[in-house]
């Protein structure tokens, strides 16, 4: 293009409209090979890209369109794309040139012309575009046809009804059977774009077309493959064999060099597996999916991050994938923090009795690192590991005690928080370590850890000799403490009194605390609870004891697992933003349509039971969830509220395929009982009986209650907030 390659930086200087105009006119004379005008145009384009408004030059630039030079045409078109919309009153000047270029001999120019026209959504342009587009969709040159296909989507965006009336959707459908793979994939891309619009026509595939698309797969470009693979989600298999056959054809794409192709392939395989019956094939596919996922981890941290967030979803639905690969997720010192946290979560999910030792050793290593955030999560993970894998609990406790000995403030605090949960999980087993914990009371300065420690002191007041002294110290600043701590103190004081009713200290203490709570504190929750305790104690201390020391439901780790129906739905978005933020896209992306598993005779019974219907046009209110410290008792009785809150009934123990809790839907009888059609031994979790219509709700529960209107990576999935 330029004779002085490498010198173009000089074009990046601000120029004035008048100067350019004059230059352009001057360049017209003796312009051999149009070199002069080319240089002026280049300066203008450079100015456009710097954000300077060049629209005043419209007529001058448009005049250059007649010059028979591809380069100049490209620049003029670039100019038109930038200012065409703003110059609607003058655009008619260009239409003749457009029409002429649409029938140019050179396919590049034909394509360029319709492409440019489709970017200028003005009625008069669209009017001439529709005719030209009809020809171009049947052009003999594939480059023109593939460009035209995408232009249809643009036309549809500008004027859906016009595109439908013009029969363009049908023409696109015909293009899906084109001989050229790129044309096919672009037609699919255009149809998908139209189908994803809330006001768009529904785009579904039948078996014949789906197979035709698959045939075009090997010759398509990588981007085309992604479009085609993604469109397969619009095909609903009616028979198990159809799904199985298709999976076998798709599976080779797992070896593609492009990571996006790989992840899209995985999404399709996961989808198709819902419609399969052949156990052996499902196992085979699961086995095949592992290595490519691991390979993604050799890429840059950005790709790793996306891969990790997806792996986290995939292993919850198909735990046999990567079952033996926990080592791959060990964190490196130099990993960016977002990669580390994502890996940590996966390590926890993959931890089993067989690998618990290795995982614990790693977690201990992380707990000695420098990054505070990461260290905290590591400590927390040790606690979760103890709760999840019983045989590892002893060594986890030992590890936590060693960490407490480090006296590093935030390490101790995290350790105390998780130890409290371990006490709940294994009652009567580890209370011997309480004295060690009590030695570190002074270090605790964060509300959560303080509340946890206070809970421990209150709950086990009968085993701690100096419990009343400790409580006396702890209540010293009662009125200055945050509500979370005040609530803990209040309950602990009552517990202490019930255990040590004889002790004068405890009597005085409970009196003092109740008085503060009811008379000096403004928080209604605290005051109300104060009154309740007071009355209980006044009327019948024994009943009070039964209430505050009631048997608590056991802590399990399934509360932090996602509901199966929601998971199935999220996996349809594998690789997309939804899977990064673990939210369904229609809840945070405007105009996104939801996806849901479609029912068919081939859908496995278990998936059918937990189908979450799409909630179209039903955005959640953008109200902000104020994380105020509510009373622990009447917290929202959500089915999967992290745990505890004595108000909740004990959850049924999770057994695989525990058919008793399943909802019986009429369709299931034709399939083998209520057990998962996949016969998935790996489906360790029972579905929440209240498969709610709002998939969102479940997610919030599973992921620790993020604000509904602001999706963001969920890092602190590890929370057990118990009172």
């Amino acid at each position, binding site marked *: *293009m330029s*004779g002085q390659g*490498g010198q*173009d*930086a000089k074009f*990046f200087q601000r120029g004035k409209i008048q100067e350019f105009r004059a230059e352009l006119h001057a360049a017209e004379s003796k312009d051999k*090979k149009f070199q002069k005008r080319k240089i002026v145009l*280049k300066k203008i*384009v450079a100015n456009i*890209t710097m954000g300077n408004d060049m629209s005043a030059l419209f007529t001058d630039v448009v005049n250059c369109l007649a010059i028979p*030079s*591809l380069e100049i045409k490209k620049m003029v078109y*670039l100019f038109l*794309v*930038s200012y065409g919309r703003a110059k609607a009153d003058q655009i008619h000047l260009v239409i003749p040139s457009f029409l002429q270029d649409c029938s140019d001999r050179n396919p*590049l120019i034909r394509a360029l012309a319709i492409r440019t026209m489709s970017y200028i959504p003005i009625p008069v342009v669209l009017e001439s575009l529709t005719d030209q587009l009809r020809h171009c969709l049947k052009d003999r040159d594939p*480059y023109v046809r593939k460009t035209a296909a*995408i232009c249809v989507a643009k036309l549809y*965006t500008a004027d859906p009804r016009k595109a439908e009336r013009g029969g363009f959707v049908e023409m696109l459908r015909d293009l899906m059977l084109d001989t050229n793979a*790129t044309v096919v994939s*672009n037609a699919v*891309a255009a149809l998908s*774009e139209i189908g994803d619009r809330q006001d768009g026509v529904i785009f579904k595939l039948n078996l014949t077309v789906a197979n035709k698309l698959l045939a075009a797969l*090997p010759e398509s*470009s*990588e981007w085309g493959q*992604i479009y085609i693979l993604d469109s397969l989600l619009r095909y609903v298999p009616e028979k198990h064999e159809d799904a199985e056959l298709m999976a076998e054809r798709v599976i*080779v*794409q797992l070896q*593609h*060099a492009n990571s*996006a192709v790989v*992840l899209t392939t995985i999404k399709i395989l996961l989808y198709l597996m819902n419609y399969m019956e052949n156990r052996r094939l499902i196992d085979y596919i699961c086995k095949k999916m592992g*290595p490519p996922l691991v390979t993604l981890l*050799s890429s*840059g941290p*950005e*790709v790793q*991050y*996306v891969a990790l967030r997806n792996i986290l979803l995939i292993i919850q639905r198909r735990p046999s994938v990567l079952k033996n690969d926990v080592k791959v997720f060990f964190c490196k010192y130099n990993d*960016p*923090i*977002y990669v580390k946290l994502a890996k940590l979560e996966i390590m926890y999910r993959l931890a089993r009795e067989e690998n618990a030792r*290795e995982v614990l050793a790693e977690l201990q*290593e992380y707990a*000695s*690192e*420098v990054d505070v955030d990461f260290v905290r999560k590591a400590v927390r993970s040790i606690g979760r590991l103890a709760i999840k894998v019983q045989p590892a609990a002893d060594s986890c406790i030992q590890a936590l005690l060693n960490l407490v000995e480090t006296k590093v403030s935030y390490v101790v605090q995290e350790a105390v928080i998780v130890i409290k949960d371990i006490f709940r999980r294994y009652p009567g087993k580890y209370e011997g370590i309480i004295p060690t914990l009590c030695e570190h009371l002074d270090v605790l300065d964060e509300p959560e850890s303080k509340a946890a420690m206070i809970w421990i002191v209150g709950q086990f007041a009968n085993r701690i000799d100096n419990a009343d002294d400790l409580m006396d110290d702890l209540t010293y600043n009662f009125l200055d403490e945050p509500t979370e701590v005040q609530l803990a103190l209040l309950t602990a004081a009552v517990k202490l009194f019930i255990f040590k009713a004889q002790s004068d200290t405890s009597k005085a203490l409970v009196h003092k605390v109740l008085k503060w709570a009811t008379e000096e504190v403004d928080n209604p929750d605290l005051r109300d609870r104060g009154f309740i305790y007071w009355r209980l104690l006044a009327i019948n201390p024994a009943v009070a004891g039964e209430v505050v020391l009631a048997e608590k439901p056991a802590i399990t780790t399934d509360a932090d697992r996602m509901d199966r129906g929601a998971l199935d739905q999220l996996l349809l978005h594998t*690789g*997309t*933003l939804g899977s*990064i933020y673990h939210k369904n896209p229609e809840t*945070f*992306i*405007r*105009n*996104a349509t939801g996806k849901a598993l479609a029912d068919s005779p081939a859908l496995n019974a278990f998936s059918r039971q937990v189908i979450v219907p799409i909630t179209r046009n039903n955005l959640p209110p953008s109200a902000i969830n104020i994380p105020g410290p509510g009373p622990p008792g009447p917290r929202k009785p959500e089915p999967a509220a992290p745990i505890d809150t004595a108000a909740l009934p004990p959850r049924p123990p999770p057994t695989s395929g525990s058919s008793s809790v399943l909802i019986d839907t009429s369709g299931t009888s034709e399939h083998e009982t209520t057990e998962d059609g996949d016969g998935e031994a790996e489906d360790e979790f029972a579905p929440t009986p209240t498969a709610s219509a709002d998939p969102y709700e479940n997610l919030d529960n599973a992921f620790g209650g993020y604000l509904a209107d602001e*999706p*963001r*990576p969920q890092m602190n999935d590890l929370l057990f907030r118990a009172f």
Partner: protein
Amino acid sequence: MAIDGLIILDATGRPIIQSGFRSSTAAYPLLHIDALNHAIAKSPRPDDVDPVLYVSGASTEGSSACCHVKYGELRFLSPVSGDVDPLYAFAFLQTFVDILHEYFGSISADTLKDNFDVVYQLLEETLDAGGHPLTTSPNALRDIVLPPSLLTKVLSVAGVSGLASPSANSHPFASPIPWRKAGVRYNNNEIYFDVVEALEAIVNKNGTPAVSTVWGRVDCNCKLSGTPDLLLTLSNSHNLNDASFHPCVRLQRWGRDRTLSFVPPDGHFKLMEYRYAPASTTSQHQVSVPFALRVATMNIDENGGTFDLALTSRLTTRPLENVYIDLFLGEGASGASCVVSHNASWNFDPKSLNLHWGIKSLPPSSTFSLRGSFTSSMKTPRPARAFRIRFEIIQHSFSALKIEQLKLTGEMYKPYKGMRGKSTGDVEWRW
């Protein structure tokens, strides 16, 4: 399934070049640039910024996400507003970076500015305004966008330009194979394979690897005429666990008998990538680390510490080259003084707070040592729990992958073929 566009920022966070955001307001790209710059400024370590940044939209627009990667001093951004695969954005960004690399050699703010018209043409051809990637195969691109070097050469020789030059040919995409140019001619038909393997490992205190993986890659430089159809047989291919391939490779064939059958693109391309895990050597499928680091002392005292290290090569025939050992000395580290054996070098980087020990070449079975102390303004310094050790081994591959045979069909000539191996390593050694 389309990204919204592409923005390239310079080292200071200012945009150099961006694609036309035609279906959104002018404020949209700016919103993303600001969001990213803000996030970087806020983050203690710039590399820790979320790669899929959530950008809450202005009142008129919905929210969106900003996918970004760093490449040298530049940052490449791709805003996405639909429910799009972020990997799709990252894959496109990577492809675009590769294309720029192919066109300009090195990529910097200056090269991009100097060749902005070429970059623009590339953007126009690779990404349509709706965010759909178009032509990204370098072979096809070279037909429609002239690389600057070729351009200057052609112009200076022929003194012509524009449509007349052989480049802007009127038959773009004439080749039936999208990744290969039609009508390629060479006097000498040659093809070179570079096997590059990278060991990544984490080694525990006791010297046993917690994880060790070898990632391998076969780069290819193809200078063959016509439309050659190649059949490449590798030795030890059973050791390659999971391989991924350039689109030119026939996957079915690999699945059947582990041979690579393909019509190569012209010029440089990445033929395959793989992970190597030996099947037999150890029960744990681990590759052994070719050196040992002995941490004789590592004492942390008040406001400083002392250390005594010895690095021994476990290789018996080849030297380890360009060995770099780094240790982050913790916040507040203020200086170090060390004694190194042989002609190794050391220094302390006050900016990154890293202690750096460099060994040009570590002969087989030899031991180098470093002894010294560091000071810190912190009362109890907290250095990193691990050393980072990087190295290279020339003419070596962990997997012992070799080309057994290269058969060519479809053309009459006999190509010259060459193959080289090189290994690198990036090991984290805990103490």
